[in-house]
């Protein structure tokens, strides 16, 4: 069943060290804030104390007069352009409902004003001197409150566009179907319905948002920023500030994690505006508390899944209804909602009838944005819980039940065409799917057969095992574009310029590995420059699991073009036609055995004969989004005295096609699993009755630490994706979708209670045990 080129890779498939590793492990200055900031103004924001209010007056006169204050920003003196902060391709499928500074505030922590001053202390003093009068408005603090007829309207401004129904606080609405689920349910022998709810969670990158704005020697605005989307930043800042794109340069140096929260244009417009007004460099970063309250979050969701199954164990109809809380602004509201269905339902493509519908609802709470998994995480909780329930009621092993219903190589799903990123999707057929092997390997590794149903007791602890499967995607077909430029140097090395954005994921490294593979050179001969809008070609940025598959293919194509040029120069040198030449071991090698080094080839082209710069640019817009697949298994122990859930062993068997760099791929899965475990067990933003975040600190928003992780086994299963660069698919997101449903199913195996609300805190678990 494995279709794979029988070809040994020289660089691809090796766990090469990251190209930026040395600097990172020795603490070299590589991050936004690691430059001389002594001349930069410091920007601080005054956040709204109210969940919903009009600013009836704002007096900054005292603040402006204070020592060291360079400027004070409010709605009165900044551009009024409505835009979205969502870092998405143009035209962005998110409402234009945001102003840099608005006359209305819509959540506690929303921007009221900002000060740029010589020091942080002076900025803080000036903030305290700004006098604001608010007309408090009634707030909506839940999806249900917000959708009630007559509810206060979060976005009542006249100039917002792209909102589905502002009068009902509905930012986005999706409704697609295949076949007829009503008929499908009627034809089914078993119906299982479940509703699951997920909480507000935050990405907590260890480096918060940060930007340094400055003017270069030509008075162009330079934004050195911690972002996942440099090109979208450039475009949206141009739009918001009303300046041409060519007067802005965006540079992303190393960044301290993103996970989606930096797929957003949050700080750059303010910093850019301050620099343009003052001609001074401007430094703007969020405190940890502001990162929690005023950046972006996971969309809390309520997802109802109803499946109809035939006696033979075939899912015949699936209905999924998803309602998401998109918070005070609609960034990513539509697309996360759509993804909840588009990345889940195709997995069970045997269901001839499917219906996905839902809404993204505005509330006066922190703003949902892009977060690894992007809706699929929430969707799989409900879907894999329902599947687990159905398997039990049918008397089928859960693994067997999945095998009967999961999509296979060569198959498609009508959902692919119906549901894209906020618009119609793209039809596709799966060309690589090793789910069966993933399930086999995973089950064996966890000890499924010997543990399932045993409910082993140790003192007050009861053990159980659970499983789940999932798919994700590799980029957004016919929307995402990545491009790469390669140029050759006369010592046989190459500069690789990519717009693609390395968040720490190692994309610089794996893209270099792809180029090195095509060009027959070691990794050290590829010098990567990434994410500089003046220098590197366009790339959408790091999201939608696009980098390996989309940017990687652009790199492969650029390398292939460069290879052709190299062979063209070498052919007369060797007296051999190009079809008989190959690149290997830093040389052009003829079938018959003669060779010439790449250095010699480039010297000839650079200095000697028919001179030209060996270089090429290539792009990739994918026509499909081949899903990676994942089978998860977890062994948990539940303390029946206290409700504490401990994960003892977690196994993730992954099909990501060819892993360009296995260790980096493992790292992506390990990290996303641990993030998912936190999301499942301990992470929860808590709110006061007035909509204020009560725990905007690591002290009370608990993410997993080294003491909390189980034994984790990640197995990269052999696979090959024919449409992917070197056979690769992407892998950045899928891991985070596993822990919630897998652990919910494991808890059920242990103690017979189904948990349908995350996080599975000890109190919730104990309460469920007592009710049972």
């Amino acid at each position, binding site marked *: 069943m494995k279709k794979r080129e029988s070809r040994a890779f020289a660089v691809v498939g090796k766990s090469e060290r990251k190209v930026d590793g040395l600097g990172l492990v020795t603490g070299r200055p590589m991050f936004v804030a690691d430059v001389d900031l002594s001349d930069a103004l410091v920007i601080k924001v*005054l*956040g*709204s*104390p*109210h969940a919903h209010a009009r600013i009836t007056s704002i007096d900054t006169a005292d603040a402006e007069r204070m020592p060291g204050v360079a400027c004070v920003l409010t709605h009165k003196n900044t551009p009024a352009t409505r835009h979205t902060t969502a870092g998405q391709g143009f035209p962005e499928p998110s409402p234009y409902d945001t102003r840099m500074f608005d006359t209305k505030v819509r959540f*506690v*922590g929303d921007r009221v004003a900002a000060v740029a001053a010589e020091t*942080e*202390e002076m900025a*803080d*003093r000036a*903030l*305290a001197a700004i006098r604001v009068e608010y007309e408090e408005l009634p707030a909506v603090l839940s999806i249900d409150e917000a959708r009630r007829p007559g509810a206060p309207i979060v976005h009542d401004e006249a100039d917002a566009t792209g909102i589905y129904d502002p009068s009902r606080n509905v930012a986005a609405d999706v409704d697609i179907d295949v076949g007829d689920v009503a008929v499908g349910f009627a034809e089914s022998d078993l119906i299982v319905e479940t509703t699951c709810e997920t909480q507000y969670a935050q990405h907590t990158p260890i480096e918060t948002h940060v930007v340094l704005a400055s003017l270069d020697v030509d008075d162009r605005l330079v934004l050195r920023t911690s972002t996942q989307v440099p090109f979208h930043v450039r475009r949206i800042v141009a739009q918001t500030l009303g300046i041409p794109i060519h007067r802005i340069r965006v540079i992303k140096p190393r960044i301290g994690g993103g996970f989606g929260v930096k797929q957003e244009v949050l700080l750059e417009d303010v910093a850019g505006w301050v620099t343009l007004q003052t001609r001074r460099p401007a430094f703007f970063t969020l*405190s*940890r*508390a502001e990162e929690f*309250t005023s950046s972006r979050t996971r969309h809390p969701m309520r997802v109802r899944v109803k499946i109809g199954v035939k006696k033979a164990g075939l899912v015949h109809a699936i209905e999924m209804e998803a309602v998401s809380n998109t918070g005070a602004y609609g960034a990513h509201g539509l697309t996360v909602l759509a993804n909840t269905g588009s990345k889940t339902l195709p997995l069970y493509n045997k269901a001839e009838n499917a219906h996905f519908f839902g809404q993204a609802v505005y509330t006066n709470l922190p703003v949902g944005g892009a977060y690894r998994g992007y809706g699929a995480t929430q969707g799989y909780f409900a879907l894999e819980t329902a599947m687990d329930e159905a398997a039990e009621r049918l008397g089928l092993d859960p693994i067997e039940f999945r095998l009967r219903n999961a999509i296979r190589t060569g198959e498609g799903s009508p959902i692919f065409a119906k549901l894209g990123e906020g618009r119609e999707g793209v039809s596709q057929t799966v060309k690589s799917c090793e789910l069966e092997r993933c399930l086999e390997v995973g089950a064996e590794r966890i000890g499924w057969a010997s543990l399932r149903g045993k409910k082993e007791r*140790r*003192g*007050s*602890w009861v*053990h159980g095992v659970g499983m789940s499967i999932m798919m994700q995607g590799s980029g957004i077909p016919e929307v995402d574009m990545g491009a790469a430029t390669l140029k050759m140097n006369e010592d046989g090395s190459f500069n690789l310029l990519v717009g693609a954005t390395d968040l720490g994921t190692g994309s610089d490294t794996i893209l270099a590995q792809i180029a090195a593979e095509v060009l027959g050179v070691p990794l050290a001969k590829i010098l990567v420059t990434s994410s500089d809008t003046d220098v590197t070609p366009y790339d959408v940025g790091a999201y939608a699991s696009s980098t390996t598959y989309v940017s990687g293919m652009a790199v492969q194509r650029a390398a292939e073009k460069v290879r052709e040029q190299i062979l063209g120069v070498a052919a007369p040198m060797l007296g051999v036609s190009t079809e008989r030449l190959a690149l290997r071991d830093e040389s052009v090698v003829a079938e018959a055995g003669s060779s010439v080094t790449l250095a010699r080839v480039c010297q000839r082209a650079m200095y000697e004969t028919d001179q030209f710069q060996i270089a090429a640019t290539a792009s990739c817009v994918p026509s499909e989004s081949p899903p990676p697949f994942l089978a998860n298994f977890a062994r948990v*122990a539940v*303390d029946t*005295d*206290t409700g*504490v859930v*401990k994960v*003892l062993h977690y196994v993730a068997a992954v099909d990501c096609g060819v892993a360009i760099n296995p260790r980096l791929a493992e790292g992506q899965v390990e990290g996303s699993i641990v993030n998912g475990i936190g999301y499942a067990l*301990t992470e929860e933003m*808590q709110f*006061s009755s007035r909509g*204020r*975040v*009560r*725990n*905007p*600190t690591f*002290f*009370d928003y*608990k*993410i*997993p*630490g*080294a*003491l*909390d992780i189980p034994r984790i086994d990640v197995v990269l299963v052999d696979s090959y994706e024919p449409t992917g660069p070197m056979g690769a698919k992407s892998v950045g997101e899928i891991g985070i979708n596993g822990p919630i449903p897998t652990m919910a199913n494991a808890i059920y195996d242990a103690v017979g209670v189904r948990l349908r609300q995350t996080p599975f*805190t*000890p*109190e919730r678990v*104990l309460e469920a045990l007592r009710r049972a």
Partner: protein
Amino acid sequence: MACMIGARCPSGMNVGARVGTAACLSPREGTAIIGDAKGETVAVHQIRSVVRPATLEEAWERRRSEPGASRFLAGGIDLVLYVPPAVSTLIDLSPLGIEAVRQEGADVVIGAMATLTDVLGSPLVGEVAGGFLCDVLRRVASPLQRNVATLGGAAVRAHPWSDVIPALLVLGARLDVFDGRHSTVELSDARARSESPSPLVLAVRLPGASRDGRGAFEKFARTGFDVGVLNCACFAIIEPGLCRTARVAVGGTPSVAQRLPRVEETLVGKTLSASQIALAAQAAADVVDVRDDRRATAEYRRVLTAVGVRRCLENIAGLGTEVKE
């Protein structure tokens, strides 16, 4: 900590009146503001001087002369995280040479400036109740903080979630203090005293009588690096079969740990059997004063009290299967 009228707090709360204890913010959030804003800024701007007294007398005199504007500086963690608005002078205790751990007769005397790391690694402390205090300290915060936080600071600051306080309470710890004169006071008495400034703590004294007892500690936390939503410490001296001394303390209720004398009474003079332990655990759940907060509900804390006390006592009695899942 206090929020002042007219302030703007980093969490955006509109502060309209003086609030005694700002339940709105976790103490790790940062202070309230008047003029000098200090959200989460790292520098504690209002500190104007740090003095290094050469003698105890000098330290005490400085403190006594500016009670409102000065504070003793031990490890400094709590002061970096929160400085009361009027404080401008810190009196550094490091020059005073009060960090050693020593044996004094039957007592183990731990200098107030000993870090938690120093204490948990001390062989002398390890000999008291089988190293009970060391085991507890290993569960406090992270090693990074244990390398800076002092035992004296922990005893004085007495955070509501403190793991140190219940451990010291059940060990019968006393404090050597100085307020112009030297004296030794019970830990619980020291905390009940209200004079300002309170005496300078020089050492934590573990009485010789506790040496041969057995202690156990349970901490229920959300993650491994966390404060407890509840903690329990128990200590007993068991003569053949019978419990001669029993001490039980429950903390993080969310208030700081207190001993439960009614529970202790059910144990003294009794055998630590499973049934006696169950009675004690139930008694603890009945009498403990628990409340809701953002970390847990009162009801759940009551459950944890019973479980924690039972597990501690089973541990001490050698009954519990030391099961960690």
